[in-house]
């Protein structure tokens, strides 16, 4: 499904060191990704995520470093080379979508095809299937102002994908949506990104979006990469207090049947939402309680675990647990001392169904 278009010199498809100096702020972020990979840049406001995205898009030149895509240089300050946005094989989904208000949904999607030389009719004919794929065929004639937030997001995605970009950039793609729409759109975006055959880079400050959508997280703070890796890895082994707070989330994927979600390895999680089909279950580490002996508890999820590691983050201990399923638990130092936890300690972990969140994958 993912064509291997690796350059003959075995460089990654996206190969960049993004260095941008702006006054006192310096962004210096190395990035690399293979075709089919979804990369999430995660960080607080002002961390430099948007600057990185603009540099990738060609809306902002690098001060130093380099940017290569599929082996072709796009920006190389040392050689005085800079290909502006309109010359890059990219697609961008902006945070507030920036759909052209004077064009219909169809003409918005057709816009990039028109600039590539297609005549109006041909561009529309090629744009329509993209709207159909997004389930928006009947809204093709509508102006963006008449579209709901979720519909506008899908039109923006269709517009970016219609030009068949080699690098898809998404800036806070779900931030403008309300909570309910967000669930649906997030699930759908996940499928679209999974299908996408080239490199996708996503910028977000929402750890859940990042963990659900991305294959790899790159956490940025103050213009630097503070940690990167697979979402579960980063969540369970946070390197800074900030990451521990930010991505403190136990996240599992399984199959829902009513209020039960069965994980691929057979474990069953009880949840509070009634769902059917592929689903995610998430709960924060402080929803997990630990016990030395099997507790008499009303908690529906109870697992025998082994402590794998223990880290102090701020005023909390983050306990890394192995067992039937990997778990992270947050404890106060007092609780950790009372339980006398050390690596290898066997404990019972309990999670109330009401403290979990399940949503369709």
């Amino acid at each position, binding site marked *: 499904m993912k064509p291997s278009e690796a350059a003959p010199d075995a460089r990654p498809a996206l190969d960049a060191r993004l260095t941008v100096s702006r006054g006192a702020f310096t962004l210096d972020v190395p990035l690399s990704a293979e075709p089919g990979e979804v990369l999430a840049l995660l960080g*607080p*406001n*002002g961390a430099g995520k948007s600057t990185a995205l603009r540099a990738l*898009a*060609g*809306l902002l030149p690098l001060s130093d470093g380099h940017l290569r895509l599929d082996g072709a240089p796009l920006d190389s300050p040392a050689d005085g080379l800079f290909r*502006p*946005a*309109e*010359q*890059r094989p*990219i*697609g*961008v989904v*902006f945070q507030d979508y*920036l759909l*052209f*208000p*004077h064009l219909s949904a169809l003409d918005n999607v057709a*816009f*990039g095809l*028109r*600039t*590539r030389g297609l005549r109006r009719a041909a561009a529309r004919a090629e744009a329509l299937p993209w709207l159909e794929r997004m389930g928006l065929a009947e809204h093709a004639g509508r102006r963006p102002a008449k579209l709901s937030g979720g519909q506008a997001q899908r039109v923006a995605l269709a*517009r*970016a994908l219609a*030009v068949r970009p080699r690098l898809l*950039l998404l800036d806070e793609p779900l931030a403008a949506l309300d909570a309910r729409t967000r669930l649906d759109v997030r699930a759908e975006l996940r499928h679209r990104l999974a299908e996408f055959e080239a490199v996708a880079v996503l910028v977000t*400050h*929402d*750890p859940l979006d990042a963990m659900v959508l991305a294959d790899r997280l790159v956490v940025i703070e103050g213009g630097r990469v503070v940690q990167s890796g697979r979402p579960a890895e980063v969540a369970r082994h946070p390197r800074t207090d*900030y990451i521990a*707070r*930010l991505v403190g989330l136990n996240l599992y994927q399984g199959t829902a049947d009513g209020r039960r979600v069965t994980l691929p390895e057979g474990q069953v999680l009880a949840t509070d939402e009634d769902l059917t089909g592929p689903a995610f279950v998430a709960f924060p580490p402080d929803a997990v309680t630990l016990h030395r002996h099997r507790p008499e508890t009303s908690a529906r999820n109870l697992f025998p675990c082994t402590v794998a590691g223990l880290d102090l983050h701020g005023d909390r201990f983050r306990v890394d647990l192995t067992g039937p399923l990997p778990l992270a638990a947050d404890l106060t130092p007092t609780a950790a001392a009372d339980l006398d936890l050390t690596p290898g300690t066997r404990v019972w972990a309990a999670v109330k169904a009401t403290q979990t969140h399940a949503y369709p994958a």
Partner: protein
Amino acid sequence: MTGPDAPRTTTAPHPRGRRRPRGAGRVPAALLLPALLGLAFLVLPLLGLLVRAPWRSLPALLTGPEVWQALKLSLLSATLATGVSLLLGVPLAWLLARTEFPGRRLVRALVTLPLVLPPVVGGVALLLVLGRNGVLGRWLDAWTGVTLPFTTTGVVVAEAFVAMPFLVISVEGALRAADPRYEEAAATLGASRLTAFRRVTLPLVAPGIGAGAVLAWARALGEFGATITFAGNFPGRTQTMPLAVYLAMESDPEAAIALSLVLLTVSVAVLAGLRDRWMSTP
């Protein structure tokens, strides 16, 4: 720096102090009186025009060949001047709103100078530059045989000189108000700067361009000082409505009133059109 899951603090749930009920405040006489006087000052002369209008002889006055000639010339030259202003003024406004270059503030000041410059001075200046012996006019005459002063083209030039700043200011304001990120979005879709301007920016600021064009057209229609200085006052060639009104005041005041009524009607129509179509939209 707070994390994204930091609790949201609500600020100032209730405005402090008591709220003044709407419309309850009394308007001080010291403000009301001069305000009403000012209103009367602006409106009464126009009412006077209507009161003293020779309504009975109006049809005869307005169907006279001189009036038609002047009106036709006025409409034609004002429209051409607006066209010239659009052709040159919109790109100029874009340059001022979307690019950075040294001396941009100075250029902007120069562009708006004709707004405050007495039109007669503008006419003199045009004569000095584009007149038969002018700095540029000499070459124009020598190379193409074209002379601008005292021709209908000269009327258009004089009107465009005075009217274009209105268009530039209006369009520049619209461009500044329009989100430049739409142009970035167009760029990421492969649009060159010119394509983005043509297919995204222009449609977005169309209301501003329309408002500017109407303002420029109205200004060109009423232009007097620069026109009479640069183009003279030849019936059928350079005598526009305002010039005809002024001249008629000396010989035939009733005709002057009739001509003024026509211009007033056009102005009111323009204002009404502006309010409904453009002034309400940001």
